[in-house]
């Protein structure tokens, strides 16, 4: 696969209606404990007329994944299709990935000894983890592996306005481009084009 064919999320800020359906679907599909939010809807410029818009945020599966760079136990791995995953059996819950992440994607259940941070949890783009695909243990630790079944990640699949796009970065970019050409920017925003976390975009 070439560098360009990487799977990416993109939330069309002109379409997102802040229904929170994506985050609810994610939490339900993966049976996440309360307090763990792999996906979150945020509203920017709230209350400012003409400037307000909402976005659905989760792990952006960055090309230069800073979480992977800082992990002291090297528990991250990047699949050939660009999905950034991690091994919870290796993770020590140090939260360095959270410090490196610009999006606050890594989540930490307080289930370690004396209520300390347990293994990190984050969006897997519904691609599970390093364990045997669709095994009970994989499902328990990482949630559904919909990618292995040829399904779209649950958040994007159920997005009622199809604001949340997922797929090959180029395809996603073309869809967004067509939409913008057809309707213009709903809000005066710069396309955020989150591809890499740090450095030239």
């Amino acid at each position: 696969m070439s560098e360009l064919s990487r799977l990416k999320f993109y939330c069309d800020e002109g379409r997102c209606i802040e229904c929170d359906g994506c985050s609810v679907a994610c939490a339900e599909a993966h049976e996440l404990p309360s307090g763990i939010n792999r996906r979150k809807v945020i509203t920017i410029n709230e209350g400012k007329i003409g400037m307000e818009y909402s976005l659905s945020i989760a792990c952006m599966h960055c090309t230069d994944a800073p979480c992977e760079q800082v992990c002291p136990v090297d528990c991250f791995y990047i699949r050939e299709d660009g999905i950034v995953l991690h091994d919870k059996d290796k993770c020590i819950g140090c939260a360095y990935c959270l410090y490196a992440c610009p999006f606050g994607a890594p989540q930490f259940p307080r289930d370690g000894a004396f209520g300390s941070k347990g293994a990190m949890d984050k969006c897997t783009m519904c691609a599970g983890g390093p364990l045997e695909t669709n095994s009970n243990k994989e499902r328990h630790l990482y949630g559904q592996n919909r990618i292995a079944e040829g399904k779209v990640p649950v958040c994007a699949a159920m997005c009622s306005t199809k604001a949340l796009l997922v797929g090959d970065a180029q395809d996603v970019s073309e869809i967004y481009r067509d939409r913008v050409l057809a309707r213009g920017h709903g809000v005066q925003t710069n396309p955020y084009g989150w591809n890499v976390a740090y450095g030239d975009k």
Partner: protein
Amino acid sequence: MKKSILLILLALTTAAFGAADSAIWGNDMIPNILGYDKEGSLKLGYYFTLLQSTYFKPLFLGVLLGVPAVFALHYLVIGPMIFSHDRKKIYVFTVFNRIVHAIAAIAFMLIIPTGVIIMFGATFGGGTFVTACREIHAIATLLFIISVVPMFFMWLRWMFLHWDDIKWLMIVGGYLSKDKKPVPAGRFNAGQKTWYWLATLGGLVLILTGAAMYFQDFKLEILAENGISQIDFLRANAIVHNALGLGVLALFLVHIYMSVFAIKGAIHSIITGYKEEEEVEILHSSFYKELKDKNEV
């Protein structure tokens, strides 16, 4: 004092459970995402990523291998200092001194190796073992917390800069030769003073930065007032913690070498409280003179 620390820790843990008004994933997340990597942002995410991915590990490895290598060379080329154990002994460390030091010593022997294991976690395969080390790293800090305050005050009066310290540094404490020439130093020499300040004040900073990372999700008014987000605060804590940890690791290795290898039998002074008279006469000559003037030797 201890009660108030406990209360603060308790308050921090309860804050950590209130996910609804999280300092990291709550409303504060939005300006942080928008501000990242832009003009005017602190760029701490970028700096933390750069330091942690590229610099910290090699630096720790350098200290971990380099310091013992230099000492091995010193031991082979110059050799240890051997002082007579037949002369009188001078009482230098009280029972209180020794108990406080022992608690701190146990804490350091737990904290430092576990810290190194966390830093090189990938080499140890991560998982249960490294997680356990991370927990020990945190729990052993309680031992350090109870010893660092008395240690700071019990030795403070001898730890201020003195002319002897400059002279001591110029001749690297006399460790570069085997001649038994009196070395300019009071009760504590410049090396011990450096270690004292790094271990107490540096240690206090390490405790605070470590606690911030341990409790993670809490709110400090002072940060909000200065427009610093919790996540940037944590990044700064991690950078400071690792940088100071590097210094403590280096001087800890020096401390072990000096007490166990470089000066034969020196370690007994912190166990029994007595130093060999000749050791004091040579290595702490100003202190020895003082004792002589007072007719205490």
